[in-house]
């Protein structure tokens, strides 16, 4: 679909000598009708390891390998970021709702709303600048220091952690606001419920009441997490680019620029699977925590 023949894209050159083009086309079955190619692709998916073709750019690495490598690194970032985001967001929401209309509440609201409007890749650049370049606290590119490969596990762990801190921070700061707002709104709604009066009458302590309120306010948060899970993998694209972090985002970006179609197909396939699994998991969790929901 994109300009340029597939074989030319593979060879990374604008014009191929005819012989080379013929050989490449034959080798990769590019001359066969589209339906046959599609068929082969689908069959390839069900093998193990899934045969998704070969990446043009990383030849001879198969697509699956390339995608898997990058996926792991992205997952590391986004899982951490999501955990932190939910933790911080929910806690902030609880505090804000508990002290509603107070200066603390307004400040928290202001701060999170302000941070929410910030384009997160810009935030990433600023963080990179301040903490990486000026203060030199954290390394500025990639996810590991290649010279550590021969090092011991502790060193390897340490380098992975330090390289991850800035991207994770950028992601977290940009997204915690939505959780904070949702939790706060949810808590405020719960405040008016009757069962809280019953609890008070029973003599439950403030802390106990708070616990009950929190547990009952969590439902919309779970919904939000479910909604965002699907975008986890792609959410980090811009951040990865800023930090040159070799994850899915950077891979997709480079694949687009290099016309690496098989890699792109593989990447989107994986994203689709991730979204489906994530939504499915979210549904299950939903059914588990809300006694009113059942999937009979």
């Amino acid at each position, binding site marked *: 679909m994109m300009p340029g023949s597939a074989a030319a894209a593979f060879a990374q050159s604008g014009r191929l000598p005819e012989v080379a083009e013929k050989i490449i086309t034959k080798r990769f079955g590019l001359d066969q009708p589209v339906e046959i190619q599609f068929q082969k692709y689908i069959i390839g998916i069900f093998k193990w390891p899934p045969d998704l073709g070969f990446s043009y750019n990383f030849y001879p690495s198969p697509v699956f390998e390339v995608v898997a490598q990058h996926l792991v690194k992205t997952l590391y970032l986004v899982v951490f970021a999501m955990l932190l985001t939910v933790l911080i967001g929910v806690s902030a929401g609880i505090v804000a709702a508990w002290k509603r209309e107070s200066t603390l509440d307004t400040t928290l609201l202001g701060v999170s709303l302000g941070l929410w409007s910030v384009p997160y890749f810009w935030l990433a650049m600023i963080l990179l600048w301040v903490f990486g*370049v000026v203060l030199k606290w954290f390394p500025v590119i990639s996810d590991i220091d290649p010279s550590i490969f021969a090092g011991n596990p502790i060193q390897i762990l340490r380098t992975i952690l330090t390289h991850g801190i800035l991207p994770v921070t950028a992601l977290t700061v940009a997204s915690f606001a939505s959780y904070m707002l949702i939790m706060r709104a949810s808590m405020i709604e719960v405040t008016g419920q009757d069962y809280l009066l019953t609890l008070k009458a029973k003599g439950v302590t403030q802390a106990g009441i708070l616990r009950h309120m929190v547990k009952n306010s969590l439902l919309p948060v779970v919904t939000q997490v479910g909604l965002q899970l699907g975008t986890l993998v792609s959410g980090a694209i811009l951040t990865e680019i800023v930090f040159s972090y070799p994850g899915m985002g950077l891979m997709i970006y480079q694949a687009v*620029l290099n016309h690496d179609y098989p890699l792109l197909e593989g990447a989107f396939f994986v994203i689709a699977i991730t979204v489906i699994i994530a939504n499915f998991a979210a549904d299950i969790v939903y059914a588990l925590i809300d006694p009113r929901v059942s999937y009979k």
Partner: protein
Amino acid sequence: MEIPIAAPSVLDTFSEYLRLISEDRKSLLGLGIISAFVLIGIFAPYIAPYDPKQTSTLVNTPPSWQHLLGTTYLGEDVLSQVMWGSRISLIIGTAAATSATMIGTVIGLIAGFSARRAVDASCMRFTDIFLIIPALPLMIIFAAFFGPTMYNIIFVIGITSWPSIARVIRSQVLGIKERTFVKAARVTGVSDVKIMFSIILPNVAPMILANGILAITTAIVAEAGLDFLGLGAPDIVSWGTMLYWAQSFGFFYGAWWWLLAPGFCIALLGFGFVLFGFALEKIANPRLRR
């Protein structure tokens, strides 16, 4: 034949909206910020101290009296670029948001109003497909495919943002559809198309407006993102392209002012929209009015 439209007269609603907005200090502040940027954008050719693309020998200078926000690696004035950039960013943002809103509204109307479940269901499945696909990768692919011009960017952002609006409009329409005066119109034999546009549309208009305005922020950020990736038109000066150049060249020279300015503007404008959104929420959702 008189079509019974139960919405209050346009003038009444308008003054109600004005009241809502002016009573809420947050929204006024937001409106102020937005207006400031709009004015800067409109009058940029007159108030910008330099031509934004005019290079000079004063490369990479930090903010000074001569160049209030410093200069780029080519000696261009950052402040002028920011002012001209607000034009482009606002234009692209508004255009993209408008297209997305139009598409979303039409689909939402059709899906919500149609008496046939099949039409509704197929519209929503179609919408869901676009909702599920992560927007950014899709935008990247489209932008790379269609080529880097301003119109393509607007188009790309438009076709990835309409689904959420369609959803919202559809649920509103479903609600309005059940009200008496709509049923009366249908029974009286008014054609479906006429009902959709003469009755339902005026009633969902506040919702459309509110969502559309909020969509502008997402569009501006999306445009900045696409430009940042180098997928935008290279010859225009927008906040996004400024970030692109700043990312490539600013870091190396330590030009923090070049990095800070455009992003801060996006953040500030976004914040303005969020604040203004408080009043917009009340317009769109009458239950929130005190």
